[in-house]
């Protein structure tokens, strides 16, 4: 409106907010409201220590916790055409991209890596919900194809962590075309006789659910994750009635036969290893401390690694609990 509101006020605000941002030591659990200290939360893989609510976790933080010694090598993803439609809504698409890149420190909404989990060689792909809602565009499609090709080349299983609001609208029809493209990737694995395990995390919706996320050999979801094709709001508007409690949550999908398991994030690593080793005909994983990984597998974790989870080199598979649910 005027000079005060356009110029002075934002300046003052930025001075104040700048002071608050850098050291955000506490996170409030959106579910139970408990204040959680950042280090404690990171050690617990972003799961609330008081109510077990699973918060979002970046692919990098997840990989650090997942791979032996927190060590993995990124798989290169072929670059797609930038802004193929010259899309513009209230902002230009390239500007939105730059904003997301700056906010996350990542290039795009999916990270692919190879490495070992409890000495089980794997290729892992993880979608980053914090990057434009994890939306599936050309890059994500390319990443999944690259992951599948790498898995086939190395004869390793592929584990994929899904998290997305759906297709990337800014890439229009080309985002829709990622549904068949990623399905081709799944077929490559199938034909090579390699296991493909999908871990569905909160939220997995739209075209992502309706393609590679629902085509796994084994479907595991994190507790209370929203997993759907059409979101609950759209459905409520269509049928004009309230939806039942827990509708489209992981446990609900498990009840309706769409998932194999709902697994706590802290138990996920062990479960993946167990399943993968059986599917690939390997002996049970060695329990207890393992020596450091072989040097040729050991590559550097990316330098700008998120500080969320500190890698602990000697942390191998924890002893198995006596019985499994």
């Amino acid at each position, binding site marked *: 409106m005027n000079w005060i509101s356009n110029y002075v006020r934002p300046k003052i605000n930025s001075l104040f907010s700048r002071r608050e941002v850098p050291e955000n030591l506490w996170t409030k659990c959106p579910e139970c409201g408990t204040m959680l200290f950042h280090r404690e939360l990171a050690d617990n893989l972003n799961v609330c220590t008081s109510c077990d609510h699973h918060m979002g976790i970046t692919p990098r933080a997840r990989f650090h916790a997942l791979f032996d010694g927190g060590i993995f090598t990124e798989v290169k993803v072929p670059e797609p*055409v930038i802004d*193929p439609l010259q899309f513009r809504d209230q902002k230009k698409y390239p500007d939105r991209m730059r904003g997301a890149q700056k906010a996350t420190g990542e290039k795009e909404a999916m990270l692919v890596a190879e490495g070992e989990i409890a000495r089980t060689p794997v290729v892992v792909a993880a979608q980053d919900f914090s990057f434009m809602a994890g939306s599936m565009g050309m890059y994500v499609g390319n990443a999944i194809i690259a992951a599948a090709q790498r898995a086939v080349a190395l004869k390793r299983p592929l584990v994929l962590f899904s998290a997305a609001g759906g*297709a990337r*609208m800014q890439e229009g029809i080309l985002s829709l075309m990622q549904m068949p493209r990623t399905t081709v990737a799944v077929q490559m694995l199938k034909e090579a006789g390699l296991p493909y395990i999908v871990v569905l995390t909160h939220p997995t919706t739209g075209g992502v659910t309706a393609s590679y996320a629902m085509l796994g050999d084994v479907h595991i979801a994190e507790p209370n994750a929203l997993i759907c094709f059409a979101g609950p709001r759209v459905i409520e508007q269509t049928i004009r009635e309230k939806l039942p409690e827990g509708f489209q949550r992981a446990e609900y999908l498990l009840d309706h036969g769409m998932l194999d398991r709902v697994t706590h994030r802290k138990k996920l690593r062990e479960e993946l290893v167990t399943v993968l080793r059986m599917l690939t005909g390997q002996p049970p994983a060695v329990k207890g401390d393992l020596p450091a990984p072989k040097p040729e597998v050991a590559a550097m974790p990316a330098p700008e690694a998120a500080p969320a989870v500190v890698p602990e080199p000697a942390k191998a598979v924890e002893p198995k609990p006596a019985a499994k649910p």
Partner: protein
Amino acid sequence: MNYLEFEKPLAEIEGKAEELRALARKNEEMDVEKEAAALDRKADTLLRDLYKDLSPWRKCQVARHPDRPHCKDYIEALFTEYTPLAGDRNFADDHSVMGGLARFNDTPVMVIGHEKGNDTKSRIERNFGMARPEGYRKAIRLMDMAHRFGLPVITLVDTPGAYPGKGAEERGQSEAIARTTQKCLELGAPLIAVIIGEGGSGGAVAFATANRIAMLEHSIYSVISPEGCASILWKDAEKMREAAEALRLTAQDLLKLGVIDRIVKEPVGGAQRGAREAIDAVGKAIEAMLKELSGKKPEALIKDRRQKFLDMGSKGLAA
């Protein structure tokens, strides 16, 4: 005739001509034919003008026009011995998806499509062309059969999208769509898709993961409806014109992007003003596309189809 919002001036002129003629019928001494014919000519010029360069949003309106020929009309006109096959052998028969065995130019084929219905009763029965998981699973069953008996599959796509309902979600809408796309990619028979009206998102791509994809001149194919896109990105569903523009959902843009293979011309004023012409043109296109694929081995058909989708989008609009 149902006039669209942008056709209002046309409706006025045609209405006037009609009125004049009605008057003349009552009153025999009146000779109005000259004026009426002039109005007709004016209407004709206006129609040509309106349809010469339709904006993307107007194309959406035309693509959804209730008088456009629907799947059922195409099947009745272009195929013989159509024998509908029903049910997913699991839960129900979804009437929004029709399909079965038929002959196209005497060759046995499997035809599958979305049917929207053409009056209130049939629209409700057909769920406005929005399929539930049973519809996709029926399609999978029919495609599988076509694969085993070596029958070409022809799909006619016309859906606002997969049905967003409680039961559909509970019975695995996502899984059903994903498996249909997968089945398309495994098909060892020629698969040809024609988008005859609305190609709505995942519900459409599940039928259109084909060797050859054609679109009617004024049909649309998009990842999301312009209204949906506007309400998410513009936070205002009324910005659908801008969204339709940005999404590049017209047949002309999609051909440039390499997402489709050919455009089937519609009569002036759209398929709703000349159903027969539009249907014949689609028939010719199917014939040509089938010919392109004839003699190809199952493995080659699968391989080519996969490669087609893997290559898609590598050029962008710049191409």
